[in-house]
């Protein structure tokens, strides 16, 4: 099991909040990752430019972290390949159907005090916790 890392968690969260606030005050757009990535895949013109730049920025920021820290941050996947594929389909389809993910609903939506986003966050947190509980019992 991973250790509890409250300080790096809080610092990372502050950076995410700063990014979200900058996008809103300067560009007037929600920094919601599923909406940004989904918008890149949409057929008709859906402001592809800034979305592509934001997505490129995500990787650039991660790269800056690797350069500054001198090490690649850990990514430990526990699920099998078929489970990861199924999970990816659920996350892609579900976030588009539900109009958002952890960033759009969980950070921006809750900060706007949107009732839809508060409900969405409670629902996806709930089913995620339930899923981890059930898979934990099976394994």
């Amino acid at each position, binding site marked *: *099991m*991973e250790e509890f890392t409250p300080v790096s968690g809080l610092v990372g969260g502050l950076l995410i909040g700063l990014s979200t606030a900058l996008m809103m005050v300067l560009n007037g757009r929600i920094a919601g990752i599923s909406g940004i990535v989904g918008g890149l895949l949409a057929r008709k013109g859906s402001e592809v430019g800034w979305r592509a730049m*934001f997505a490129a*920025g995500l990787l650039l*920021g991660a790269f800056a972290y690797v350069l500054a820290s001198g090490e690649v941050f850990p990514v430990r996947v526990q*699920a099998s390949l078929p489970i990861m594929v199924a999970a990816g389909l659920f*996350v892609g389809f579900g*976030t588009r159907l539900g109009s958002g993910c952890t960033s759009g609903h969980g950070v921006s939506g809750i900060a706007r005090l949107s009732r*839809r986003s508060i409900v969405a966050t409670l629902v996806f947190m709930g089913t995620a916790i339930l899923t981890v509980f059930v898979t934990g019992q099976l394994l």
Partner: protein
Amino acid sequence: MLRLIVALFSGALFGLGLAVSGMANPQKVIGFLDVAGDWDPTLAFVMGGALLVTVPAFRFIFGRRRPILAEDFELPTAKEVDTRLVGGSALFGVGWGLSGFCPGPAVVALLPALATGIVPVFAFVAAMLAGMVIYQWVS
């Protein structure tokens, strides 16, 4: 042009925040969702840190008539909690719980995956994009 630079910079801040917070590691996310096991509360500190910035920032920002670099704020207009919101969010949560990935961390994890060849990360992101495209076909 300026708006594209803002999007790139904001995206980089967001990606850096995800890397710093440890949330690009699915094992850490599952450690949070596993409330019945050896619980790791880090994710709550990440979301808390983000909201610590966005809640007061949004209060200030939405007191303005318009964003600094754009004509208007583009915000969701839907107000009702409907079956699409709840169903989509529930499905997203199942995928999140199975994999430990939501959209932002999955994109950021592509970087370490490229460096060390973690195939399930690519499989997840490809499936997530496919899920988003499937949503567009059926909607």
